[in-house]
């Protein structure tokens, strides 16, 4: 596509995004969180913020799973149990994972890197583009998530996601947390602890847990605010996006890979 075509496309996406944002604002009870001041939960999602994460892989420790465990607790993923009769090996491929630890070795230098990998909250999310019903959507504040009431479970978004960030619920759930609705036959993924955003709480479960271990490899914050800790980190450290070639402008950035 030509330069101009791309621009127009971007423009259209922005308009669509704005429309989607307005729609979300109408239906979703939400709070504006800016510099940690909270406003009532029925205020619209603030389009002036863009939530994101910065991962400093140098600080991410081998063998540590604090972020993964915290995510499971926060979002009720640990309430998911293998259905009776499921083979453990199969279950391992079918249970939901919102964030995972990956250990890499550079083929040239042999250097090892550890990092957590989750939904990258793309600015131009392929999962949203392909979703037939619009269940997969991007909020005005940059969070990409699934509306679990309109998802028909076609899994096209999982095919489209370059990061394999999404999980399909393969069995009936007997237990879940009221602030994280989940359900059999729907797709889900990391939503940057969206309930915390809507309640005006700081940070995400993973970033908090990582800080508690003393590693502090995950930084959560507003990418649109130049004075936020995350923006200052991105300004001072060389970071990159995974699969930068796809030009998705991800909301999750990595240092040291």
């Amino acid at each position, binding site marked *: 596509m030509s330069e101009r075509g791309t621009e127009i496309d971007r423009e259209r996406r922005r308009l*669509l995004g704005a429309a989607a944002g307005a729609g979300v604002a109408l239906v979703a009870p939400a709070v504006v969180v800016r510099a940690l001041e909270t406003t009532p939960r029925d205020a619209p999602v603030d389009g002036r913020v863009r939530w994101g994460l910065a991962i400093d892989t140098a600080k991410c420790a081998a063998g540590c*799973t604090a972020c*993964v465990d915290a995510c499971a607790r926060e979002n009720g993923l640990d309430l998911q149990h293998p*259905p009776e009769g*499921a083979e453990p*090996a*199969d*279950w*391992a*491929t*079918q249970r*939901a*994972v919102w964030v*995972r*630890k*990956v*250990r*890499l*070795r*550079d*083929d*040239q230098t042999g250097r*090892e890197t550890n990092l957590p*990998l989750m939904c990258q909250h793309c600015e131009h999310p*392929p999962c*949203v*583009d*392909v*979703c*037939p*019903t*619009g*269940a997969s959507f991007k909020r005005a504040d940059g969070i990409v998530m699934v509306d679990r009431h*309109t*998802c*028909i*479970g*076609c*899994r*096209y978004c*999982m*095919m*489209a*996601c*370059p*990061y*394999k960030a*999404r999980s*399909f*619920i*393969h*069995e*009936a759930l007997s237990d879940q947390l009221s602030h994280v609705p989940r359900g*059999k*036959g*729907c797709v889900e993924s990391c939503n940057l602890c969206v309930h915390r955003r809507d309640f005006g709480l700081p940070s995400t479960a993973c970033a908090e847990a990582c800080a508690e271990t003393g590693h502090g490899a995950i930084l959560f914050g507003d990418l649109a605010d130049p004075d936020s800790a995350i923006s200052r980190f991105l300004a001072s450290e060389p970071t990159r996006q*995974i*699969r930068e070639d*796809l030009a998705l402008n991800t909301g999750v950035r990595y240092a040291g*890979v």
Partner: protein
Amino acid sequence: MKRIVYREWRLAPARYWGILGVLAVMVGAGLLAFAYMEHEGHWVTGMNNSVVWGTPHVFAVFLIIASSGALNIASIGSVFRKPIYKPLGRLSGLLALALLAGGLMVLVLDLGRPERLVVALTNYNFKSIFAWNIFLYTGFMAIVITYLWSMADRKGDPFIRPVGVFALLWRLALTTGTGSIFGFLVARQAYDAAILGPMFVAMSFAYGLAVFVLVLMFGFAEDRRPIGARMLRRLKNLLAVFVLAVLYFTLVYHLTSAYGAKDQGLEGWLLFDGGVYTTLFWVGWILLGSLVPLGILYHPVRGAEAPWVAAACVLVILGGLAALAVVIIASQAYPLQLFPGKTILESGFLDGVGGQPAPYHPTLPELLLGFGGVGLALLITAVGVRVLQFLPESLADEVLPIDEETIEQPVAKAA
């Protein structure tokens, strides 16, 4: 040359109901499998968070593109003015409808929330090619029904060609739309290829025709209606050309992606050490699905014998399923290349540790659901040819229209 007479399929009731019974059992088993998957959840299938589309999608895509290919016969007859194919037009339309219905059944019943189909029909995301396909499929049904009417009703005569042209264009859009479902997945190496579109069109011609010829031969043999040597030669030559086209696009597809440096990992894996996928590719797609049928169809003696032509059709169909399994499943099993130049040593979510492909072991319910779709397509066809006049009385050489139209024999007189 005589007027073509169409007649309902006149089998002895016992035989006919026997056939219907077998097909109904296939459909029933598919529905039971669906009920089981729906009740338990998808964990009873082999599909998982890495291979998210499995056997049901192989069958669904096969049936949908075969549907478009089945209608090709009617197009050749009316749009491209080859009267010899005209007597086949009605069956071609019926089969197109039936195959599409079968494919859609499988696709819908595999959804995680099939009961939310209404949501899919009322909430459109117009950026999604999937949503567009819903229009393409429903539109296709409507057009084919009009087309059938124009072929069957005397009053429809002047509309045959315009409706046929429209159906042809719509059909190409439908196949391209189905192919684009994969083409839009830019993040997956296997689908990042422009050749995928034309390859799907060629596949649809070949698989649709193979199904058509088999159904035609079976229907005619059961009812002792003759298929002359001229018609058989025509059909088998056409099939051979389509199979060659698929083979050609397959070669181009795999050569171009083998030369694109980025994809060498995927290509090398698929062509040489992809295990079952390598077998599916070479033995299923290339050998049994392309080369052997070509050998039969171009054989000077075997190529003229009906049982051999039927065998070639069966092989083309099986090869087609193998090909789609490679296109759909192998490309998901191969790990996404997230970190070029790095090896994944450990991962909490099967990211292809050490380049390992993701596991996928199809289970019985998935297969039954797929066969249920095939059963539905054949059931609709069997009922259709019984109650309405879809099948010509005879395709013997002497009753067939001429092969090609010329200026002296315009279409109105030929028909």
